[in-house]
């Protein structure tokens, strides 16, 4: 970016992380998520924010692929579902504590994503996108036929599972705060990647992969790493989400609708922006709440997602943040 010409920034040294406004904006958002439902013990608000936190986690991590590297991942929900399955299995069958099960699920899913990613890393553009949806189909077929995980019937957790967290009522709060932590980690991960050399390489791949390769970006490796990195936190979110519902089955865990919604969110907020993914997720969650309660629209949720995505792609490809940057260019220095 040639900011020297406009005279805005001449000093090229990076600002220390604690003096960057965006660092504190993210901290404020997380603090708001923690504090808002605590005021007046608002359970309804907590449930709505919990869903928003899941959406933000999925969208931010999808953004690493879709926004930074310009690669569509149709199967981002695989990470969420597999994370859920692994941790529910470890808790129910092997009696692991929640924290250990979560960590194991996150690491296992990331490693698996790295293996898959290295397998399909040579594919580009549309082929990569199709292969990712194949991974979704493949994993789903595997889980539906895998007896230890209950096949298509799924796995249940006994109600006593919440006892170590202080009973069901307290456990729901604990899970909520953990999910907010995962969401916060997603935001900071997006930020860290965006400001790193790795992120620069991903952005270069997104702009022009051939040129990036010529300039020395190891594109296949970077894509596989981004794919694997974008798996970790959604796997944790999936583990917590299905621990909360104490029940998991293939149709819920690998709901392609959620993958689609994550894509709509990223495009709605603005591809490649962290603020966009967060605001998009919040807006979409609100819209979805309205659609589900509206009699006319509850059957047409998929149609609404589709029309929304089409309108964004056709007319506002930069999304919300693209529009904001266009109106107020100075925002580029504050919001990432």
């Amino acid at each position, binding site marked *: 970016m040639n900011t020297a010409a406009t005279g805005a920034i001449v000093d090229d040294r990076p600002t220390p992380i604690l003096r960057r406004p965006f660092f504190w904006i993210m901290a404020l958002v997380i603090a708001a998520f923690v504090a808002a439902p605590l005021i007046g013990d608002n359970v309804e608000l907590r449930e709505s924010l919990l869903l928003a936190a899941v959406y933000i986690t999925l969208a931010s991590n999808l953004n690493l692929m*879709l926004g930074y590297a*310009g*690669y*569509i991942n149709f199967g981002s929900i695989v990470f969420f579902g597999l994370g859920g399955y692994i941790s529910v299995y470890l808790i129910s069958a092997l009696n692991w504590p929640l924290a250990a099960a979560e960590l194991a699920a996150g690491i296992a899913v990331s490693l698996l994503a790295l293996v898959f990613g290295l*397998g*399909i890393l*040579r*594919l580009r*553009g*549309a*082929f990569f*996108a*199709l*292969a990712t*949806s*194949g*991974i979704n*189909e*493949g994993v789903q*077929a*595997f889980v*539906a*036929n895998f007896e230890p995980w209950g096949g298509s019937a799924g796995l249940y957790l006994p109600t006593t599972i919440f006892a170590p967290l202080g009973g069901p009522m307290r456990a729901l709060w604990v899970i909520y705060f953990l999910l907010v932590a995962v969401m916060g980690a997603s935001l900071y991960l997006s930020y860290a990647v965006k400001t790193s050399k790795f992120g620069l390489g991903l952005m270069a791949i997104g702009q022009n992969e051939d040129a990036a390769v010529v300039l020395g970006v190891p594109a296949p490796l970077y894509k596989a790493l981004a794919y694997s990195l974008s798996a970790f936190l959604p796997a944790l979110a999936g583990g917590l989400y299905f621990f909360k519902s104490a029940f998991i089955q293939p149709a819920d865990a690998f709901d392609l609708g959620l993958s*689609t919604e994550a*894509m709509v969110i990223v*495009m709605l907020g603005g591809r490649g922006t962290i603020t966009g993914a967060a605001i998009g997720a919040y807006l979409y969650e609100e819209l979805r709440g309205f659609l589900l309660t509206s009699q006319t629209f509850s*059957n*047409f*949720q*998929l*149609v*609404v*997602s*589709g*029309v*929304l*995505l*089409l309108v964004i*792609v*056709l007319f506002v*490809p930069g999304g919300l943040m693209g529009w904001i940057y266009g109106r107020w260019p100075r925002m580029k220095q504050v919001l990432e």
Partner: protein
Amino acid sequence: MLGIIALIIDGVLIGSVYGLAAMGLTLIWGVMNVVNLTHGAAIVAGMFALYLLTSGLGIAPYAALPLILVGGFFVGVGLYWIAVHRMIGRPPLMILLSTFSVNLVVIGLGTAVWGTGLFNVQVSLPGITWQRYTFSGTHILAAVLTAVIAGSLYLFLYHTRLGKAVRAVANNREAAELSGIPTTRVLSLSFGLGVALAGAAGMLIATMFPFTVLAGDAYQLKSFVVTALGGLGNPAGALLGGVALGLVEGFAAQFMPVSWTLVIEFVLFVVVLIIFPRGVFAFTRT
């Protein structure tokens, strides 16, 4: 031994219809370099068009084919202007997203209207019995009609002026434009043709197997596998690739549950793309 021959014959019959579906995909891909993710939706639309025409209007199943071809063509031209035209020249990611969103709208409407249950079109057609094996009449007629449609497509592409224009645009759009070919019209025509072929394939599949609103994804995947096998933008390769896929499916079904078919196809897709990036049957190119 006889069983294997019977398996091969049926695999070829079904596979040729997969080839027809893939021809629609590969035509669009080859001419305008667009990966059409509405392909699965077009196949499902063909299936439900057959269902509506036969059960609603009482039209004979195979009389619906020309109607579906013509209807599919016009829907395809419309789709081109709505979702594709503005995207030409933009990053490929955007075309994937725009066609994907149209796919969502179609599948969403279908789910809202028909739900996700199984549908079935009754076609009574005598089969041909050979030794202990009976080849279903619908499979044979589907393969014959596929051959007719593929032959007509060949005649159109190689023996008409308009077909020549389509091939010219596929080769080099700028050069075609400079030679006075209205490329935008050719692009919309090709998209219409591609959707019409997908719809016709869907209709033929519906005469053979039961179907659901959500079946499109699986058949779209098959088309992509076939395209990978046959090489991009290569209708003749698509037909061969389709037959190859039909055979693979027939044999795979002998050894493992049907729910694994999709997984095998995906593995095949990735392996073929990595080992033969130009396609296995890519010896000819339009």
